[in-house]
């Protein structure tokens, strides 16, 4: 069953078409990878789905409701959370406060059952592997922990769908593996995910299905195996990451 449908989505920026008549759907419980070369319009798609940008035309249907133009916080409350390309946190407040402000006690998420908000935040920290003292200011965290903190903040809002914008960007292979592990455990806990990632190897590894974009349009859609065999996709990447498809 598709919980999210993107229908004929179009977004222009002063004459430049960032996304053009894009169509795809996301099934409940799947990990969908959104890939494409730089400037393909992937981040714009995330911004459109999460309400940070308004589409020029088309529809975003979430559980049969058109959520076009809704404010971001209303979309979060409907169960769609996101992370950012550059890890974005509240730098001068503690990591605990970074997460508790986002806490939503809805029963949507089955992974964390604690009713006490403080305990729930600590459970989320444990889940993402954030071992830093909860009173530490977020600005003092290293890059990989900032990423985990972003995950924790997104998880705290009790989402059914999380959109991850380059979650392993700037991380070492070991750190990337630990993020991939969080993604898999979240998915096993019933959370649906859309991932944008430049590290194609990681995307191929964790995604159930992939949508490939180029110049704002959908180029191809299929399982990682199907995408690997698609000559159009390899061409779009101009061989830059050909070894990743092998």
């Amino acid at each position, binding site marked *: 069953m598709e919980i999210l449908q993107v229908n004929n989505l179009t977004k222009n920026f002063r004459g430049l078409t960032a996304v053009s008549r894009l169509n795809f759907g996301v099934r409940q419980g799947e990990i969908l990878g959104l890939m494409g070369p730089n400037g393909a319009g992937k981040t714009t798609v995330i911004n459109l789905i999460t309400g*940070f940008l308004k589409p020029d035309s088309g529809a975003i249907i979430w559980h049969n409701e058109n959520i076009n133009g809704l404010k*971001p916080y209303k979309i979060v409350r409907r169960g769609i959370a996101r992370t950012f390309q550059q890890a974005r946190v*509240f*730098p001068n407040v503690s990591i605990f*406060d970074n997460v508790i402000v*986002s*806490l939503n006690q809805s029963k949507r998420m089955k992974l964390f059952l604690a009713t006490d908000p403080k305990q729930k935040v600590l459970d989320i920290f444990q889940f993402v592997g954030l071992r830093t003292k909860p009173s530490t200011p977020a600005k003092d965290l290293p890059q990989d922990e900032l990423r985990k903190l972003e995950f924790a903040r997104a998880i705290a809002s009790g989402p059914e769908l999380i959109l991850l914008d380059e979650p392993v960007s700037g991380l070492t292979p070991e750190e990337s593996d630990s993020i991939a592990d969080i993604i898999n455990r979240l998915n096993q806990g019933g959370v649906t995910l859309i991932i944008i990632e430049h590290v194609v190897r990681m995307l191929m590894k964790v995604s159930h299905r992939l949508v490939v974009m180029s110049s704002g349009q959908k180029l191809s859609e299929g399982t990682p195996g199907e995408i690997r065999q698609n000559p159009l996709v390899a061409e779009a990447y101009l061989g830059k990451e050909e070894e990743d498809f092998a």
Partner: protein
Amino acid sequence: MTDTQRKKQVLSLTIGILLLLCFVLLMPFLFKNRYLLHVIILANILAVFAMSWDMLAGFMGQLNLGHSMYFGIGAYTIGFVTKAYPISPVLGLIFAGLMAVFLSSIVGIPCLRLRGPYYAIATLAFSQVLFTLAMGLPKLTGSEEGITNIPKFIMGIEGNYYFSFLLLILTVLSLNLLYRSVFGKRLISLREDERLCEAAGIDTNTYKILGAALSAFIAGIAGGYSCYYHTNVTPDMLSISLTFSVVAVVVFGGIGTLYGAIFGAYALTFLNEYLYFIVDYRLLIYALVIIIMLLYSSNGLFGFFKERYLTIGNTASK
């Protein structure tokens, strides 16, 4: 810091606070100096008002340069109401706070989309409109003379001394509870990154309006009590120089630190009252104070004190 060290510090801080409270209670009996008590009352009113500005600017990141309008509207509310009806002073103060809340919603809604300097200028413009109205409607506001002969809330300087402390303590306790609550933490997160707040599911517009309303309520009560204490209200209570005083107080004491406003209010009130010969240069001195503090201790006097002597009890790390 080990648990034992922490416990020791909590104990010494508790003892310090208790001693300070005893000193505050006994002060009118220890010193028969009525002028000193008067200056303390002024400092307490300014501290309460400054904490309300700090809530907006320091904790929520909303630089309001017209904050005196909330103080002034509270004062004028008492002026109008006590002239028209014999109202209980406590109800009068609550009404003064509510009128400031009403004004904050009139100011806040059109300013919602404004950020940074645009918000600051818009609030400054609103306060100038009120100041001009207060000056230009003599039949209603008494113009420059203001409204005079307002009945005293509490007779005697000692009573006012204790009441001003009660107001100060209630404000500190309420704000402390607020900043520790999830609601308060969401207000603080507005200062950090509004877009991220939206991504965290926070309705930023509603929180900005509610935060400004709470801040205005406190400022309105401070203005109302100031009117009762002075038994008059003048357009000065709406003036830009009052807002700048409060900015200087908070920057000097420590912006976004809660207790900094008290430090700043005491320092600048005593400076004003005991160095009265420099009163003509007050704004110049405030400007210098702000520049010096920003250059040498951006966390203000309280930040300076806290870094050296305290490592516990931070309500909003900044």
